[in-house]
């Protein structure tokens, strides 16, 4: 029980084979009381959510809702060992995301034909993919853009490592390929298992990241259109998104998507609202660049899961549409600058500066905190946080309305993950080494998502280049949503082996080296 950073043996909080940790951390009086107050706020958010009978009804209808029992534990995992500004940055982000997801769930169940069945509300809902930029919704202030896959699969696996296993098995029982990405496969499994809320005037799907996502979209859209009567638009963004000659096509896809939404909801595109959202997107980009700029110095401030989870939510799912995220950006920047001015560190020792590349495993999102606490490896930035930095047109003029269409197309092409897994070797392979130089990194942790063919195909090329540049390249294999293939300890072992045999180092916190948390949420 210690106030100082790095004094606790964080592995001791785990009980072998247990589902939850023994107790919460003592972080000194001030930080413990702060963490406690945030825990109370989370409990109030959850309490408010279950006060509505329709949400309780949904809890007993949808299997994936059981994962939401683990919300406070998810926050505990990401705040492990954090003190001062880092703890506050983490809570600012996590608490806002929890609130946003609670509102998303509440809206889904309000319109769901099985639960709330509010038909008028449902007519104002546009369903979107989980892994899709919501840029085409920036000009529809009166419509609700809701993703069914975000709460049923994406967030569920962050809460409970085993959340997707049932749905992956259902999809494979019905003959879907077992070697595609488990994320779209689980999303398809939710649809096959009749476990997705049914609502909405229409839906927009996107050719997101891979063959697996096309597989999932095919299964889901068929049920939506033919059984639920919900028309679906396929937003097909170009693969080689950096090429100039594809941009006209990409812009036309955006115009078509907007026309489709207008047709099925009866609403009209609102330019004034679009440009308001664009200003907020630009502000978020400015803040993210400032944080990354700090991370190039010896005193990085917003990094690890504090950077990764928040960027994914703010950049892609929010896309300037919710003002509360602008407030959070401002608060995070203030805290980061405060800590930077005092040359603060998030752990007692920084040994290595690492770029985290590839697609991270969702069942182990707190791996970045583990890297820092166990081995002193600072995850300066991850691949999914290195997204578009383009400044969007934000003044409403006739020329800018045309530019805005291209801006939305650019954002859609450059959605998280897609901007690197699509676009060829330049964006996936070459730019990594530019980032290692810019961030003065001596190490690359390369998540090898074994079902992601775009990434694994370049395995040898990554190794060759790392050798040429003298960068330590540590491979971490995983299967994204399925810890039965490679467990969290299986992930640890890959790092532990490299650090002990190649680097000849001892862990900073040996209690974290082996954690028997296979049964844990």
């Amino acid at each position, binding site marked *: 029980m210690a106030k100082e950073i790095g004094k606790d043996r964080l592995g001791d909080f785990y009980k072998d084979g247990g*589902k*939850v*940790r*023994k*107790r*919460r951390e*003592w972080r000194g009086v001030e930080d413990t009381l702060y963490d*406690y107050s945030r*825990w*109370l706020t989370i*409990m109030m958010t959850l309490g408010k959510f279950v006060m509505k009978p329709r949400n309780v009804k949904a*809890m*007993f*209808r949808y*299997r994936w809702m*059981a994962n939401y*029992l*683990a919300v*406070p*534990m998810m926050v*505990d995992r990401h705040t492990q060992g954090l003190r001062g500004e880092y703890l506050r940055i983490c809570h600012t982000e996590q608490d806002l995301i929890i609130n946003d997801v609670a509102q998303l769930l509440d809206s889904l169940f309000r319109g769901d034909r099985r639960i709330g069945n509010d038909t008028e509300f449902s007519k104002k809902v546009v369903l979107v993919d989980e892994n899709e930029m919501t840029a085409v919704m920036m000009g529809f202030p009166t419509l609700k853009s809701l993703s069914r896959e975000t709460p049923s699969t994406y967030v569920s696996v962050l809460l409970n490592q085993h959340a997707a296993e049932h749905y992956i098995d*259902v999809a494979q029982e*019905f*003959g879907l390929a077992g070697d595609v990405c488990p994320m779209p496969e689980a999303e398809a499994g939710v649809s*096959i*298992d*009749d*476990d997705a809320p049914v609502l909405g005037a229409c839906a927009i799907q996107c050719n997101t990241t891979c063959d697996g996502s096309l597989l999932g979209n095919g*299964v889901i859209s068929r049920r939506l259109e033919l059984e639920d009567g919900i028309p679906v638009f396929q937003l097909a963004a170009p693969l080689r998104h950096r090429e100039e000659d594809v941009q006209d096509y990409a812009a036309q896809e955006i115009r078509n998507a907007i026309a489709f939404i207008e047709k099925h909801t009866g609403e009209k595109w609102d330019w004034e609202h679009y440009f308001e959202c664009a200003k907020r997107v630009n502000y978020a980009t400015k803040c993210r660049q400032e944080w990354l700029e700090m991370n190039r110095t010896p005193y990085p401030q917003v990094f690890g899961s504090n950077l990764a989870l928040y960027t994914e939510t703010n950049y892609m799912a929010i896309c300037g549409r919710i003002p509360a995220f602008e407030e959070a950006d401002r608060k995070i920047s203030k805290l980061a600058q405060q800590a930077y001015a005092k040359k603060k560190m998030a752990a007692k020792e920084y040994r290595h500066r690492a770029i985290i590349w590839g697609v991270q495993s969702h069942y182990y999102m707190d791996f970045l905190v583990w890297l820092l606490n166990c081995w002193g490896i600072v995850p300066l930035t991850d691949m999914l946080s290195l997204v578009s930095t383009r400044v969007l047109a934000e003044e409403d003029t006739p020329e800018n309305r045309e530019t805005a269409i291209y801006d939305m197309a650019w954002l859609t092409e450059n959605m998280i993950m897609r901007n690197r897994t699509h676009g060829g070797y330049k964006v996936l392979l070459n730019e990594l080494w530019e980032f290692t130089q810019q961030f003065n990194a001596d190490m690359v942790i390369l998540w090898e998502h074994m079902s992601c063919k775009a990434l694994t195909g370049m395995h040898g090329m990554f190794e060759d280049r790392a050798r040429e540049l003298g960068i330590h390249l540590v491979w971490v294999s995983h299967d994204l949503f399925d810890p039965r293939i490679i467990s969290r300890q299986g992930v640890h072992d890959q790092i532990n082996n490299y650090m002990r045999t190649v680097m000849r180092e001892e862990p900073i916190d040996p209690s974290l080296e082996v954690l028997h948390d296979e049964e844990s*949420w």
Partner: protein
Amino acid sequence: MNKVLKFALKLLGKLLLVALGFFVVTFTVYFFNLDMKLTAAIEPFLLKHYDRIERDTHL
């Protein structure tokens, strides 16, 4: 006046006592992770319940 003051002080004392009780109980739950231990015990019953629900499972 005295009566009013006495009543106010009594009320304040009670409120403080309630607040202290609330803090002691919730902080104990928080620190010993009792909320998560309870929900972990509930989960298996919920999973059994989901298995019993009739569903229109198909491609």
